């Protein structure tokens, strides 16, 4: 499942309720989870807030492509992606990626792949609020 959220979300609650809805008890042996949250610093500056913009339609389409490619590459049971847009405060979760598989290697490798692809292909943009103004984040950190 892929969701773009305009309001704050609780990743651990989401994870539990989505997993419960899957009815896969006993089928999976591995769940790899990545949660990306907002820092209060970037490139040496204090960051007070952030706005995340996206391209409705294209963003979902490319997240779906990433998921389909991951499913072709690894044997996976399910994938959950939740990504925030809108106004975000430090410590707010920005992204949740969870991958369920029978064995750990597929879950680890697929979750890493999905995150790296999301960061380089999915059309989202961050604008930071600093104490002395705003600035667009020009590129993501390398890892």
């Amino acid at each position, binding site marked *: 499942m892929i969701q773009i959220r305009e309001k704050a979300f609780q990743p651990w609650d989401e994870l539990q309720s989505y997993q419960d809805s899957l009815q896969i008890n006993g089928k999976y042996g591995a769940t790899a989870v990545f949660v990306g949250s907002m820092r209060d610093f970037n490139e040496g500056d204090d960051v007070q807030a952030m706005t995340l913009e996206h*391209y409705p339609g294209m963003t979902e389409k490319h997240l779906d492509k990433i998921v389909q490619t991951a499913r072709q590459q690894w044997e996976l049971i399910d994938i959950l992606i939740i990504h925030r847009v809108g106004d975000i405060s430090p410590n707010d979760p920005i992204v949740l990626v969870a991958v369920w598989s029978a064995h750990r290697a597929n879950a680890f490798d697929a979750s890493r792949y999905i995150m790296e692809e999301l*960061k380089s*292909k999915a*059309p*989202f*943009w*961050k604008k930071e609020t600093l104490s002395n103004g705003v600035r*667009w984040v*020009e590129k*993501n950190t390398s890892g």
Partner: protein
Amino acid sequence: MSINIRLFASLREKIGKAEFNIEANKATTVKEVWTLISNDLPMQTNTLCAINMEYVDSDHKVTDGDEVAFFPPVTGG
């Protein structure tokens, strides 16, 4: 032909519009569309282009009714 333009993030702010239509001659490329809409702002080498929500190179042909988008490198996650 009619082309729907979408601009995002810093490019939307620089050009001052988010979405609008233009009329262009046939056999136009994405790069030529940029020239028509950019108020002489040069296209950065890292500018990303999409037609109908698929990434394309800037020399890709644009056809009637296409949605052409320009945006800076993506920074999600």
